[in-house]
């Protein structure tokens, strides 16, 4: 198998290397890809949408359909992970508790699980030592990570960033809590049900803004239609429409990242993680 693979790879590689002869030379400003449509987008981005970051303008306005269905693909990936992995059966092993004041670990047989109290804290079966520094540093860091993520979403018009990046960073802040504490803490902050509702809400916001444009008498995802309810001119309305769409994308991406992590790291039980 290795030899066949190597032969195929060498042949395909030689073919591709031969075909590079016809490419324009690397970084050529007059290459065919850069002269027609891209020039139009660069010239018209500010007069038509008032968004200086051309990538955001093209992503959410000129190619709005594309981004909407990419968001749906991410939503479907989250659902697929959930359907593949989620187990609703409770793990019937024994459980471990830690006495908060002294740090003594208790091993409790099943059927005798005590009520939740402030003196005892449930810990994972794959026991890891209690680490004060890691827990507290991550807890202090998480709000700043979230603030940065909100900045990335909201400032995507003027600097690199936008819904996709900000959503991933927001999801990563929750994953950070889940890794540094345990999964129960993270699920206490944002439960599985909330995550799945948010996954759908993001796509709904995106397509809802599109449908609102139809109701206001214009084409799907033509944000200029929103100028009547936002009380601005058409160009500002496009800018605000792009912002609304980015928020929807950010919510979906955040929820999908959290959902995939929770299902992967707990093998679908969603009780204890890494």
């Amino acid at each position, binding site marked *: *198998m*290795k030899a*066949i*693979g*190597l032969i*195929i*790879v*060498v042949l*395909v*590689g030689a073919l*591709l*290397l031969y075909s*590079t*002869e016809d*490419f324009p*030379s*690397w*970084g*050529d*400003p007059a*290459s065919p*890809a*850069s002269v027609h*449509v*891209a*020039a139009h*987008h*660069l*010239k018209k*981005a*500010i*007069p038509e949408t008032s968004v*200086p*970051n*051309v*990538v955001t303008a*093209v*992503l959410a306005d000129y*190619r709005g359909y*594309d*981004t909407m269905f*990419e968001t749906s*693909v*991410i939503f479907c*990936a*989250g659902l*697929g*992970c959930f359907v*593949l*992995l989620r187990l609703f059966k409770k793990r019937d092993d024994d459980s471990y508790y830690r006495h908060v004041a002294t740090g003594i670990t208790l091993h409790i047989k099943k059927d005798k699980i005590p009520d939740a109290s402030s003196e005892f804290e449930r810990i994972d079966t794959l026991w890891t030592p209690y680490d004060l520094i890691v827990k507290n540093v991550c807890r202090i860091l998480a709000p700043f990570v979230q603030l940065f993520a909100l900045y990335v979403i909201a400032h995507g018009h*003027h*600097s*690199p960033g936008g819904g*996709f990046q900000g959503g*991933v960073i927001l999801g990563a802040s929750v994953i950070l809590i889940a890794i540094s504490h345990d999964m129960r803490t993270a699920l206490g902050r944002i439960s599985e049900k909330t995550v799945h509702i948010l996954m759908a809400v993001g796509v709904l916001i995106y397509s809802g803004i599109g449908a609102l444009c139809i109701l206001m008498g214009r084409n799907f995802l033509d944000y200029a239609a929103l100028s009547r309810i936002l009380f601005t001119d058409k160009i500002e309305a496009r800018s605000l429409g792009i912002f609304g769409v980015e928020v929807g994308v950010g919510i979906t*991406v955040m929820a999908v990242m959290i959902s*995939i992590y929770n*299902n*992967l790291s707990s*093998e679908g039980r969603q009780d204890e993680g890494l």
Partner: protein
Amino acid sequence: MSDLVVAVLGKYNYWLYIILMMIGIYAMIAKKNLIKKLVGMNIFQTSIILFYVSIGCKKGGTIPILEHSPGHHMVEPAHYINPLPHVLMLTAIVVSVSTFGVALALALKIYRKHKTLEEDEILMQLRPE
């Protein structure tokens, strides 16, 4: 001689991208571990994204974020890097991570059933005695 140098300087980036792409496809064909196959798939994916982004690159161009002042003047497109490939590839990256998550979920399912991730051992188990 100088023609050859110009040709090499203009094209060597593409050659290295193709080498990267071939590393990915070789890992997908020849490696037996399922996770290694996924890594190969991701390397293949990123090399194609790299190729697309390099199409939009312009020598002497700046990043595609325009100046936003009240009396804005005409934008000269030759001074800015082509933003279109960036848009296409930005969404492709985020979709690639979610499909990677689904692929890892499938690998977890296979491990739960067969207790191994090696392709040949799974085939041995599936073969009727």
